[in-house]
C-alpha cells in the first residue's frame, strides 16, 4: 500500500500548498468569471444564441481555465530544486503522477462546478434536471484533460517557451475529449438524458483509461533531468 500512500502524500502536499498560498484557485475562479463576461460581450446580447451555444461555451471555459491551471502544475516543484528530490526518491515515480493528476482533477472540478452555477445564474438557464448527467460527464471529461495535461505540464516545465508550447501540444490531443464532452453536455442540457450519447460516454471513458495508463507508464521518463 506504499504506492497509494505516496500518491496520497503528493495530493496532500499540493492541497496544503494551495490552501496556504491560495494563488491558483482564486486566480482560476477570477479568470473564469471574466470569461463569462467576455462571452457576453463578444457573442452579443442575444440570450437565445448564448444558451444554444452553452455546451460549447462551458467546455471552452473549462479548457481555457484548465490551460492556465494545468500549465502551472509543476511550477512549485521547480522552486528549490524539488524536482531533483522527486526524481531521487526511491520507488515507482508513477505514484507522483497519479497524485498530481488527482489534485488537478479536484481543482478543475471545483472551478467547473462554480462556473456551471455562474453560467446558470448569469444566463438564466435552468440546469436542474441536467445535474445528474452532468455529474457523470464533468468528471469523465476532466480526468481525460487532466491526465494528458499533467503529463504535458511535466514535459514542458523545463522547456523554453513553456507558456506557448503547453497549449499547442495539449489542444490537438484533447479534441476527442472536447467533442465527446460537448456532445454529451448538449444532450444533458437539452433534457434528453444520456441514452442517446452512450457512444460518446464510452469514448470519454476509453480516452481516460488510455491517457492515464500512458501517463503512468511514461511519467518516469519525463522526470529525469
Amino acid at each position, binding site marked *: 500500500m506504499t504506492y497509494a500512500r505516496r500518491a496520497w502524500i503528493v495530493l496532500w502536499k499540493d492541497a496544503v500548498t494551495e490552501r496556504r498560498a491560495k494563488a491558483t484557485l482564486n486566480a482560476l475562479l477570477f479568470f473564469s468569471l471574466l470569461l463569462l463576461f467576455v462571452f457576453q460581450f463578444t457573442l452579443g446580447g442575444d440570450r437565445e444564441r448564448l444558451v444554444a451555444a452553452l455546451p460549447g461555451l462551458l467546455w471552452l471555459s473549462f479548457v481555457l481555465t484548465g490551460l492556465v491551471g494545468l500549465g502551472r502544475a509543476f511550477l512549485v516543484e521547480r522552486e528549490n530544486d524539488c524536482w531533483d528530490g522527486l526524481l531521487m526518491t526511491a520507488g515507482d515515480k508513477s505514484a507522483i503522477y497519479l497524485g498530481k493528476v488527482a489534485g488537478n482533477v479536484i481543482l478543475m472540478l471545483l472551478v467547473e462546478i462554480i462556473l456551471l452555477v455562474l453560467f446558470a445564474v448569469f444566463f438564466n438557464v435552468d440546469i436542474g434536471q441536467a445535474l445528474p448527467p452532468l455529474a457523470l460527464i464533468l468528471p469523465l471529461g476532466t480526468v481525460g484533460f487532466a491526465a*494528458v495535461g499533467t503529463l504535458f505540464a511535466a514535459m514542458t516545465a523545463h522547456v523554453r517557451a513553456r507558456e506557448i508550447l503547453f497549449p499547442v501540444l495539449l489542444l490537438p490531443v484533447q479534441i476527442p475529449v472536447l467533442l465527446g464532452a460537448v456532445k454529451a453536455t448538449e444532450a444533458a442540457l437539452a433534457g434528453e438524458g444520456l441514452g442517446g450519447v452512450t457512444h460518446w460516454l464510452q469514448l470519454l471513458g476509453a480516452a481516460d483509461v488510455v491517457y492515464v495508463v500512458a501517463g503512468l507508464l511514461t511519467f518516469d521518463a519525463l522526470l529525469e533531468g
Partner: protein
Amino acid sequence: MNRALGWLAAVGLAGGLVMAFGVAPREITQGNVQRIMYLHVPTVLVAYLAFAVVLVASIAYLWRRSPAADRLAHASAEVGVLFTGLTIVAGAIWGKPTWGTWWTWDARLTSVAILFVMYLGYLLLRGMIEDRERAARYSAVLGIVAALDIPLVHFSVYWWRTLHQPPSLLKPGPATMSPEILAALLVNIVAFVLLYVYFVAKRATVLRREENVPA
C-alpha cells in the same frame, strides 16, 4: 543503399503516374481532377504508416535508449508531417473544383488536419529542447500519446460529422472500385511507401551525421 532506394522510389512513382493517368479510367462526374485521388489516398496512408513508425520507435527508445530509435522517430515524424501536409493540399485541390470550396469539415480531412497539428507540435517540441537526450525522451512520450490518440480522433471526428448514428464502420470510403482503379491505387501506394522509406533513410542518415560532429 540509399541510392538504390532512391531509384526504386523514382521508378515506383513513374509507374504510379502512368497508372494514374494512362490506365485508370476517367471519372464521369468529376473529370480528371479525380485523378488526384491517386496522390491523396496514398499520402494519407503513408502518413499513418509514418506515425505508426514514430510510435514503435518511441517505445523502443524509452525501453532501450537507443539513439538509432530516436533518429528513426525523428525522421519518420518529419516525413509524416510532410505527407500529411501533402494530403491536405491534395484534398484542397480536389475539393475546390469538385465541391466548390477549398476546405470542408468532413471527417477525413478534419482528422488529417488534427494529425498534422499534433505532429507539427512534436517537431516544435524537438526544436525547443537543446539537450539531445532530453529531446529524445520527451518527444518519445509525446509520440506515444499522439499515436494512441489517433483512433480516438478518428472516432470522435467521424461521429461528430454523422448526426445521430453511432456507426460501426471504421472509416468512410468508396463502396466499389473497378479493378483498374484499384490497381492504379495500389501501384501508387507502393510507390509512395518506397518514397517514404527513401526519405526516412536519408533523413536518419543526416541526423546521425549531425550527431557525430561534436568536440
